[in-house]
């Protein structure tokens, strides 16, 4: 059984689980009294480590290790639950927020205790009223019950690709624009007015809520050994039933994709997110997990699985992705502000078979120049995505570079590319 409903338990009929339903599905969450917090913290951190839980927002950093680095100062910390989901091809955090809001909030309660936070911000994109309504209602239900012990508030943020990046998030919460900031060391401390901030993704929080109830061994019992439990994926592209699915990590990639019923022969799959990696059909037999995808230079990331069928032009889709991502740049760092549009220019020229003969070598060289030179990971993600595309679509690239006409290049895109307004709202 690969479509295991744990995080998505009870959501099959697209009904929101209120607090009573939630507790009948998962059982009540019991936090220890303040005096025994230390022992409890140690044991829950241990279970999270056993579970092998990694950050579900795309970073894939081991959650137990991240939580263990939370500062122990006299001032209480602040926790941010990231529901921003800047990836246009990802819907999983939104689905969780709409249908299983209490799982996220239970996770927030547990995480707040683990990192010694006295207040929690639930960061939701401004243009997702369904998610913010569901979470706000859930907070009210909990207040009536008196179950929440820390102050929690939903905050609505401008929805930009790079705005959900954690430094951008914290920048906005501090009163600035939702633009990434520069940290000399990564991961560095994120502070709001002198208080340390810990940012965790919504699905990570929901997973923590399950691990705190059932333990790490239970969590991993769903997947191949050591792969790390279940993960929400958003499958889209050349499929008949695009949507969010819960899969056990370690499932064969082709079996994951089969859930959404692919409509044609698969020519490539973009994994992770728009700053992720294209993998060739050879990867379809690989286990969908960090380990299994490593040989393909790829990973699970935020759980985006974008299927390109044989009818798609990989070069044209890559050019569209590159242009969209270039427009999402905050424009703060030169290599990103100038480099990404330059990459998109050459890719568009190639896709339309009007590139000069240096286009491919220029592209490859620029990929090398731009990598690692932005304040945040945005340009690196674009570089990785394009580099993997040039590999996977090497044959198509040659044809395009030689000026051959491509009938697929003008097909409508299979990508979700939200309209970008002329003036960018970072506030």
């Amino acid at each position, binding site marked *: 059984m690969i479509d295991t409903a744990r995080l998505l338990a009870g959501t099959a009929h697209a009904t929101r689980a209120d607090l009573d339903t939630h507790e009948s599905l998962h059982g009540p969450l019991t936090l220890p009294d303040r005096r025994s917090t230390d022992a409890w913290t140690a044991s829950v951190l241990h279970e999270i480590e056993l579970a092998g839980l990694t950050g579900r927002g795309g970073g894939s950093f081991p959650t137990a290790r991240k939580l263990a680095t939370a500062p122990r100062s006299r001032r209480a910390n602040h926790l941010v639950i990231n529901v921003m989901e800047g990836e246009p091809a990802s819907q999983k955090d939104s689905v969780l927020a709409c249908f299983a809001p209490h799982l996220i909030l239970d996770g927030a309660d547990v995480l707040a205790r683990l990192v010694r936070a006295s207040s929690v911000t639930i960061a939701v994109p401004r243009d997702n009223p369904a998610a913010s309504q569901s979470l706000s209602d859930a907070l009210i239900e909990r207040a009536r019950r008196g179950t929440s012990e820390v102050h929690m508030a939903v905050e609505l943020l401008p929805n930009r690709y790079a705005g959900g990046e954690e430094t951008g998030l914290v920048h906005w919460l501090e009163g600035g624009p939702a633009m990434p*900031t*520069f940290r*000399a*060391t990564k991961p560095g401390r994120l502070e709001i007015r002198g208080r340390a901030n810990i940012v965790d993704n919504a699905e990570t929080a929901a997973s923590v809520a399950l691990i705190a109830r059932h333990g790490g061994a239970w969590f991993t019992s769903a997947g191949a050994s050591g792969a790390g439990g279940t993960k929400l994926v958003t499958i889209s592209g050349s499929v008949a039933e695009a949507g969010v699915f819960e899969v056990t990590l370690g499932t064969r990639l082709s079996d994951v994709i089969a859930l959404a019923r692919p409509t044609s022969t698969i020519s490539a799959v973009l994994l992770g997110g728009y700053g992720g990696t294209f993998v060739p059909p050879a990867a379809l037999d690989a286990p969908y997990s960090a380990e299994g995808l490593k040989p393909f230079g790829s990973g699970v990331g935020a759980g985006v699985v974008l299927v390109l069928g044989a009818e798609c032009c990989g070069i044209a889709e890559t050019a569209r992705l590159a242009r969209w991502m270039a427009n999402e740049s905050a424009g*703060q*760092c*030169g*290599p*990103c502000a*100038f*480099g990404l549009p330059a990459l998109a220019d050459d890719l568009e020229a190639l896709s339309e078979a009007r590139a000069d003969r240096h286009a491919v070598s220029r592209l490859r060289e620029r990929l090398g*120049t731009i990598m690692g*030179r*932005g*304040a945040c990971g945005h340009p690196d993600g674009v570089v990785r995505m394009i580099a993997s595309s040039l590999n996977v679509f090497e044959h198509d690239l040659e044809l395009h570079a030689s000026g051959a006409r491509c009938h697929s290049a003008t097909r409508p895109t299979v990508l979700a590319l939200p309209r970008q307004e002329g003036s960018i709202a970072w506030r």
Partner: protein
Amino acid sequence: MAVRLRVDPIRCDGFGHCAELAPELIALDEWGYPILTPEPLDATGRSLASTVIAQCPRKALFLETLERSEHLSRARR
């Protein structure tokens, strides 16, 4: 302690003075933004670096002290 030259890419506005003053340490990309040597600096490099750090009109350059392990892993790369 090994040190390395770094730039805050948000502060940097691509004036390019640094590459003119210290071409040994800094090249410019096609848009005029600095590409810094990833290598730890020797004594000459350090004195050159302190000059360019002081001369940067945006005060975007700084020295980073490398952890021992980090230093080694960079050397291997």
